């Protein structure tokens, strides 16, 4: 059994959302929102977190696990302090996303979904971020501030280098983002 506990903020949010769903369906419907919040608290969704959510909502752990593994935003492994997500889909591909992504790989010395040894940066190649007109596009999520991501648009080697420099120093280069 895990010693982890859901935070009081999550409890409060569950109370808030509960009446928004039909009584007979609410536990299941809250599975994804609660997984979300739990990931913000614990940084990832591992088996312990799955058990915790299942127990709180009274759902079979297998259901919660099946749900968690279906969605790419639930991290099964810990991610770095900064999660750098580079879109390489069509709009970004044809404006140079693979050069940008390869630059990141090379400078960070990690592959797709890899995390630098110091735990600072996780690099992911992601699908369309719905900013295709301003490609190549990347998004950076900072672990401590999951709801304040920044988009970085019109990337090229020079701009991604500036971003990587800043991240290495522990800063999100907000002045380059939007």
């Amino acid at each position, binding site marked *: 059994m895990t010693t982890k506990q859901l935070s009081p903020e999550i409890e409060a949010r569950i109370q808030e959302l509960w009446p928004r769903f039909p009584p007979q369906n609410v536990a*299941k419907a809250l599975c994804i*929102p609660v997984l979300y919040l739990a990931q913000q608290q614990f940084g990832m969704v591992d088996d312990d977190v799955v058990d915790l959510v299942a127990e709180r909502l009274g759902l079979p752990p297998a259901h919660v696990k099946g749900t968690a593994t279906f*969605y790419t*935003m639930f991290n099964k492994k810990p991610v770095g302090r900064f999660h750098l997500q580079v879109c390489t889909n069509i*709009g970004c591909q044809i404006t140079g996303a693979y050069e940008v992504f390869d630059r990141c790989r090379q400078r960070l010395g990690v592959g797709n979904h890899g995390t630098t040894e110091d735990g600072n940066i996780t690099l992911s190649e992601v699908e*369309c971020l*719905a900013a*295709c007109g301003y490609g190549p596009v990347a*998004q950076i999520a900072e672990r401590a501030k999951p709801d304040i991501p920044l988009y970085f648009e019109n990337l090229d080697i020079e701009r991604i280098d500036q971003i990587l420099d800043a991240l290495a120093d522990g800063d999100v280069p907000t002045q380059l983002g939007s």
Partner: protein
Amino acid sequence: MAMFRPNWGADTVGWFDLKIISRHFDVPEAKDIEYFEKHGGYASARKAVKMDPASIHAEVKASNLRGRGGAGFPTGVKWGFVPKDAETVYLVVNADESEPGTFKDRHILFWNPHMLIEGMIIAARSLGVQNAYIYIRGEMQREYPVLQRALDQAYAKGYLGKRCFGGDMDFDITIYRGAGAYICGEETALLSSLEGGRGWPRLKPPFPAVKGLWGQPTIVNNVETIANLPWILENGGQAFADLGVGRSGGLRIVSVCGHVNKPGVYELPLSVTGRELIEDVCGGMRGGRKVKAVIPGGVSMPLLDESELDVPFEFDALQQDERIAEVEVQPGIKFDLGGGRTLRTMAGSGGVVVMDEDTDLVSACWRILHFFADESCGQCTPCREGTGWLVRVVKRIDAGEGRPGDVELVASIADGIAGNTICALGDAAAWPTLAFLTKFRDEFQAKIRSSTFVAQQRAAAEQGAP
């Protein structure tokens, strides 16, 4: 109504004069309910809550509003499928925007969230909905707080919740955040996800309007579709229909990306052609290069070549105009959409991808297939196995390792997927693939002719020869 007529005749930028949804784009204050109301916001909703539901429905029908999420289905007709005696009806707004090349809903959510909320109140009144959900894509972390704040403001004013606008209607809106799965944009997958499980599509029929969320009648509409409703109620369905072309009412928001000088989000008349879009709206091609290909409505839709750009980017025209070639399975053999109908292309999600003469289309085709293979939910064998196989074969052609017969192989795999799956993701992978081969076959063939595989075969044959 005359003041809303777009300035068709003017020789300047008359097209841009009328804006319905995008009128608040780039105005940061528009996210505030005060600003929005000062500019006419919530007047239609205030009116709607006192209206007879059937008369709202009649306006929506008269407006010729068609779904902006991909299929272009007439909204008024869809609403009519809800059984008359239904006790509980749900409204779900599809804000999962993730069709590559599409970035318009994100703009609406970020710049004009109140217009969506107002539209939802109108739809709820017409459909008798008490509980609505906005299913917002998980990655839209920047838009979520903006939307939540707008909702909070509307609640604080009494426009949502118990007795909206002091009338007899109770109406709640709850945001539900997706968690990273393209397939959840498909309406039945979205409902599965909202119920709290894997985003698996369900067989249709039954359609959600009859049996949807938790088995109840449910209307799923796209963000842009719903955000048009306040204007329709303010100006009348007929005025909206008059703005449009043929059976398609209103304006349309297109998002343009790729090799144009001014990519972006534009709200335009449906009569605008692909060439006008590129040349006049988007300032022409970068570096003065030529157009090679254009995807008119997100990567699920067959692409066009340069000679096909004089067709208006409108739902029916893109499907029927004879200036657009029919997609083929093999040269001379037309792809059958079922019932003998052929496939040209479709307006889809309004995501336009413009590719210039230097674009490697084999590579582009591979990237699109890679996306679909990744996003297949795996429920049906033709989609799960077929998309993976397509990626492998197109990848090897792209990498210069293609084999003679690969083009025919790709076509037959795609043809085997199309029409044989639970949801339309299978078609979304198959159709564009066949269009690439119909219109740019030479590029695939050329890569195969110069491949290492062919070179080795030739060397072996020469060695074997006397």
